């Protein structure tokens, strides 16, 4: 008979091997490169870092990126909700097609989206021309950046909220109606509150994506320092000037911001799961 000490074994084989490979490859491709970014930052003194980050041009680029991303995410939040509502609750000709169309900003390479939006909103473009007549200039202004950010952000809100609205128990609404609530009350007091976690998650995802966006923005942006220059572009410019330290410092600020947003999203989803039991 054997000794009483039994080696722990697992039924399915390959845990050690696959976990080892996963961690190794993850380190080589993701963790070490990202660590290099922080390592490079630590070569700067705090004053140097602060100097770079608070220089007028950097500060303006960060303001433009974060501010317009936030504004675009707000538009996406409202329009995304309307689109989800139409797609989930109503039947209309072409509904399925429009449902599929929502994914285009995900699928279209950013450079393609960038040149297309620019062409569309340029002064002689299909939309640019009529807008110019109204005195509104979109391409090569901050409004252009805003438009591009709305374009890339819309699927995030729609695709996060859609499954939640679909899964919403119809009995909840029927209960509200049977308790005498009118439609307005039912929508704003019963349905929308239960969509809040998903809405906030979608908002945060759209916001995070817009902050880091490069390809679809730079063509339409105009890229005038302090006016229409986004932070990712400033990184590229600093790199081309071989000012690695500057590029790295800006990158770290952006990276930390997006990590904070992921952390927030994580929290949100955990909160939502605790509040609304998953069935």
């Amino acid at each position, binding site marked *: *008979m054997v000794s*009483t000490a039994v080696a722990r*074994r697992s039924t399915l084989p390959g845990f050690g091997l696959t976990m080892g490979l996963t961690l190794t490859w993850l380190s080589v491709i993701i963790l070490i490169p990202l660590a290099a970014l922080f390592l490079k930052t630590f070569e700067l003194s705090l004053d140097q870092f602060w100097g770079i980050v608070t220089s007028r041009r950097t500060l303006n680029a960060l303001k433009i990126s974060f501010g317009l991303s936030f504004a675009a995410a707000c538009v996406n939040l409202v329009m995304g909700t309307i689109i989800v509502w139409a797609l989930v609750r109503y039947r209309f000709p072409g509904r399925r097609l429009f449902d599929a169309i929502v994914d285009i900003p995900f699928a279209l390479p950013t450079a393609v989206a960038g040149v297309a939006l620019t062409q569309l909103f340029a002064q002689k473009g299909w939309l640019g021309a009529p807008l110019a007549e109204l005195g509104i200039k979109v391409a090569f202004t901050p409004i252009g950046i805003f438009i591009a950010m709305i374009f890339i952000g819309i699927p995030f809100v729609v695709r996060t909220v859609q499954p939640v609205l679909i899964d919403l128990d119809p009995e909840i609404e029927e209960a509200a109606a049977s308790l005498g609530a009118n439609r307005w009350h039912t929508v704003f007091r019963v349905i929308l509150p239960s969509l809040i976690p998903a809405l906030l998650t979608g908002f945060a995802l759209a916001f995070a994506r817009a902050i880091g966006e490069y390809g679809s923005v730079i063509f339409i942006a105009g890229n005038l320092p302090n006016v229409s220059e986004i932070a990712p572009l400033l990184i590229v410019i600093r790199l081309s000037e071989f000012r690695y330290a500057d590029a790295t410092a800006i990158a770290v600020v952006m990276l930390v911001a997006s990590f904070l947003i992921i952390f927030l999203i994580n929290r949100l989803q955990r909160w939502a799961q605790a509040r609304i039991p998953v069935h």
Partner: protein
Amino acid sequence: MAIEVKNIVKRFGSFAALDNVDLKVADGELLALLGPSGSGKTTLLRIIAGLDWPDSGEVAIDGENALSRGASERQVGFVFQHYALFRHMTVFENVAFGLRVQPRAIRKDEATIRARVKNLLDLVQLDWLANRYPSQLSGGQRQRIALARALAIEPRILLLDEPFGALDAKVRKELRQWLRSLHNEIHVTSIFVTHDQEEALEVANRVVVMDKGKIEQIGSPGDVYDNPATAFVHGFIGESIVLPVDVAGDAVRLDGRPLNIPALGAASGAAKLFVRRHDMAVGPAGTGALEGAIRHVRSFGPIQRAEVALSGSEGKTVIEIDAPRDRELQAGEIVSLQPRRYRIFAAQ
């Protein structure tokens, strides 16, 4: 001895799934592991199969140490609760799987494999389903295919995890009888896990009752029903009336009043009196150990089930008894009750 389990301990975090379990299973037995969910019965089964590993203890199959081998080397047939049929393979390929993955040196040729699979499908009477996919089968059919698949590797022992759990009541009854007759035919040592006492008592030769990671009783179906070893077994198997009593010497008291029944050797102090519903004899008032007013009577088949509010408890203690229909009971009637068979266990 086909299977010998010694001192098995298995913890999940701080929860002891198995707490020093010993079990011997003889060759050719059909054994039931019976217990509520969380009692550790499935964990024990999976440890025997090699699908889980104990923290300490020993498992021997046919006298060989099983823990030095992985599940794929134990030659143990395992029927999963949800069958775990390979959904992308036909029924035939499912059953053939164990034969096809054998090392080349001992792998049988295609014709032998086909013949063997055909035999097994005949055995479970489903040869006509050979080319179907699992999703096209009914629950009972899947169950039998899972069994055929497990038998294909000529297992030394057969383990079944809640074999009837996912089936509806009628199919379940049929399959029970079928499993017992199959066991009579092939006689492979088998253990099945169930939470359904009726299933365990009807199918198994021997029943192991488990609770909270421990074995409460091992015995024949008649034994565990008629002579429950612990309060848990008495409460879990069959339906019992449970009354809180005090034991002092050989006297038993309920709510401070003597019951006039012997304590049967129970230790003095707080205890619980267990009586089967049908072991409570009903007589005219003043003739038995207990007295109460009948509140409600329902009659079906050979019995009448009566709700009786016991006197002296201000009508708070209500018990249900099953009486034969030799005399129709009436609501409002005062009757006396005398336990014919009972057990007294110390309260925990």
